[in-house]
């Protein structure tokens, strides 16, 4: 039985406003609210909302046979909350069908995994929290930013509690192998890999409305036929794409929505089912290990990280940004943390690419800047201001480690003070308690007091009190001359 595993990505960065060199130190608001609202509402209207409604209809009409996975970045969710909350409602409906799996990913759509494991873990944790909060699901499959993956990441991802990762079926990694199987990670065989079928995915997201393409026009039955014609032992076809494909990259007029909605019917005819990533890794056995020495991604022709870190500008911005990551994690200024999340979005680096030809077109299509140099200048100016603010939190002269230990001391001091306080309190209570008891006993002790007996001794021999009460007269007298050994008896 063949299965299609659909996965849709939703992400929108907080685009930066034109931030001049002169603004550094003076202006701490970095975002182009107008552009962000404009773009997010436009794309939501043209693409996200109709596409999500299509998915909902597909699930209803196929009586639950259609399933898919979605991932939404935290920064995108924040913008939807602000500008198009109705889209979140539709996503909630999709989540409620139980047929849509939400995947884990980085909160900011960041490249933290490439340089800073702690930040990566933090980003994923933040995102999981947000998904849990809004959709009530705990993600079990991870989708790293832009499907970035390499062997080095596998153990960490597994230890973070994920069963599988979805990534690109890059040709230079696969060689003769087919992406239509489940694989396991080389460094960590327990972690499974689902690989994007680039050809079939890009047929939809990039070629669908291209009249020069020899397979144009692409129809649902033709497409399902292609999938059905893959060798019978290949059990899963992973179609990973941006949700923007529907209605934005491929215009509504091209019939992309009708194409999408017709897929389940033709799939049913050919006996092809739909499957979510977590079901896929639960049901299907990995056919082998896959070694990925250098990071791969789903971007550009090279399918590596050169889309974000391909030139000096990008490297510099990236290094500068993560040079303060530990500091930012140490502090607890909410606005600073928020900016930190927004500035990490890989999109800012994407705009700085100096690639030409087809890749260059892709970069400039998404970029709000005219040139990569403008993108760099603007981002660096913002980053300069951000770093100044980070430094204001803690002086730069203190090393991170020292700062860390100082902060630990401070935090420990707090707990220490607390425990000490508790101790003081309990002691105080003891004293009060005692005093009360003492007061209660006072009248009783009154009688023995006459013989001048010390109150301390009394407790131990409550039972012998009557006896002792008779004796006391002698004792003090005897004490003067008696050896000290006698006293315990009393």
């Amino acid at each position, binding site marked *: 039985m063949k299965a299609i595993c659909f996965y849709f990505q939703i992400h929108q960065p907080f685009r930066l406003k034109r931030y001049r*060199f*002169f603004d550094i130190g003076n202006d701490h608001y970095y975002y182009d609210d107008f552009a962000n609202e404009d773009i997010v509402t436009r794309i939501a209207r043209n693409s996200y909302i109709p596409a999500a409604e299509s998915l909902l209809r597909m699930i209803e009409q196929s009586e639950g046979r259609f399933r898919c996975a979605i991932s939404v970045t935290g920064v995108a969710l924040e913008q939807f909350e602000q500008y198009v909350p109705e889209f979140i409602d539709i996503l909630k409906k999709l989540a409620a069908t139980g047929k849509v799996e939400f995947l884990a990913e980085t909160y900011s759509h960041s490249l933290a995994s490439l340089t800073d494991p702690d930040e990566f873990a933090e980003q994923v944790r933040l995102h999981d929290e947000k998904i849990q909060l809004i959709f009530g699901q705990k993600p079990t499959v991870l989708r790293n930013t832009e499907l970035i993956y390499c062997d080095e990441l596998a153990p960490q991802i597994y230890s973070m509690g994920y069963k599988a990762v979805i990534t690109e079926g890059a040709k230079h990694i696969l060689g003769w192998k087919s992406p239509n199987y489940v694989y396991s990670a080389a460094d960590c065989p327990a972690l499974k890999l689902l690989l994007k079928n680039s050809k079939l995915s890009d047929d939809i997201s990039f070629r669908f409305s291209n009249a020069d393409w020899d397979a144009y026009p692409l129809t649902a039955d033709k497409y399902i036929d292609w999938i059905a014609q893959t060798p019978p032992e290949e059990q899963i076809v992973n179609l990973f794409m941006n949700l923007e494909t529907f209605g934005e990259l491929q215009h509504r007029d091209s019939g992309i929505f009708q194409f999408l909605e017709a897929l389940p019917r033709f799939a049913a005819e050919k006996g092809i089912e739909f499957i979510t990533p977590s079901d896929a890794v639960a049901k299907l056995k990995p056919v082998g290990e896959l070694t990925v020495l250098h990071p791969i991604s789903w971007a550009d022709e090279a399918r590596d990280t050169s889309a974000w870190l391909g*030139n000096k500008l990008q*490297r*510099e911005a990236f290094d500068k940004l993560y040079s303060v990551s530990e500091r930012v994690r140490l502090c607890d200024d909410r606005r600073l943390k928020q900016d930190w999340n927004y500035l990490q979005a890989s999109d800012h680096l994407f705009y700085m690419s*100096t690639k030409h030809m087809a890749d260059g077109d892709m970069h400039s299509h998404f970029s709000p800047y005219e040139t990569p*140099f403008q993108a760099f*200048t603007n981002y*660096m100016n913002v980053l300069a201001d951000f770093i100044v603010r980070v430094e204001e939190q803690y002086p730069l002269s203190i090393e991170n480690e020292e700062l860390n230990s100082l902060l630990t001391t401070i935090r420990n001091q707090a707990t220490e003070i607390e425990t000490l306080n508790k101790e003081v309190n309990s002691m105080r209570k003891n004293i009060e308690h005692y005093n009360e008891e003492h007061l209660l006993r006072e009248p009783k002790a009154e009688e023995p007091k006459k013989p001048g007996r010390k109150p301390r001794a009394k407790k131990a021999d409550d039972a012998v009190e009557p006896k002792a009460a008779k004796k006391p007269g002698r004792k003090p007298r005897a004490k003067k001359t008696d050896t000290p050994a006698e006293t315990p008896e009393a």
Partner: protein
Amino acid sequence: MFGWEFPPHILGGLGTASYGLTRGMWQCGDMDITFVIPKPWGDEDRSFAHIIGASQVPVAWRDPSREYVESRIGNLMDPDLYFKLRSNIYADFNYMRTNDLGCIEFSGRYPDNLLEEINNYSIMAGVVARTLDFDIIHSHDWLTYPAGIHAKQVTGKPLVIHVHATDFDRSRGNVNPTVFGIEKDGMTHADHIITVSNLTRDTVINKYGIDPAKVTTVHNAVTPLSEELLNVNPPRAKEKVVTFLGRITMQKGPEYFVEAAAKVLRNNHNVRFVMAGSGDMMDKMILLAAERGIADRFHFPGFQKGKQVYEMLKASDVYIMPSVSEPFGISPLEAMQMGVPSIISKQSGCAEILTNVIKTDYWDIDAMADAINSIVTYPAMYEQLREDGLEEVNRITWDKAGQKVIDIYNKVLGR
């Protein structure tokens, strides 16, 4: 070819471009090029073209001995050619101021009696056109259009004119009617017009009313620099240096540079600004820099020539060309060859072919200041622009431009 300037004795970009293009065409092979200039000095590179000096072309009959000609102008022209030209004098020009060889003396510069010199050049062109055997006439810039037209009328050979600039660029719109007349006349008579950028092409089409089918853009290129120039080693300032190099005239937008400098200096004191060159707006600029209170950081070293230009570039961290209207603008390409990141105005023709530069509107001093700051503050920006710019500019070679011109010739000649 008719031209006005030719290296090494040049006054602006026209000479450099004429030289580069001629050489580039020669590299494409099978070309026999004669280049006529007003006044050769004898040290021109003659390896790829015959150079005829207008000052050595007789327009009135004299009868000097061969030896005398040899001793007078032997270093500039073959005496045989002199006598050949002499036998093609077509009218009596003795009423004009001619010398002992019957030639008109040209200054080869841009003197006050420029229009007279242009006219004389055209008279001389009649003799040259009758003497030489050629297929096509190519006139560089408006000064030589009348000569080209004359040569066309005499021989019936097709005329191609090369528009390196128009008066709309030079005057920011206040066109000199005489110059406009000469330009328009040249464009009307030309069989084909070559412009150095699409910007200029638009001007030719819209402002001069020329049929677009007749106008083709061939972007300029650069000649690779010699090792000697690449390796000049001037002392470097402690601060970052931002340089403007060119005529300080209205066309070049120098005041925007001063304003941008004032903005940069408000936040960043580790920068010096240099405005090298001379021109009618220089005094005004010195005054403006003083008014803005940045005179201590803004320097005017005056006109730079030859090697000095490259030393100046080498000592710079940023090159800036805020031209209001620049038909092409070859200087940022030279800066890039020296590995200096460049900021150019979007209103420059070279912006059409360059990608590894920063482009701003000439009036957008905020953006300009920001770009300067970015390059001097972020080393990655500097390195990226420097390295990719170098690679990019080394791909822009004259032989490609030359081939395009040859293709245009073939089209005009119907081959």
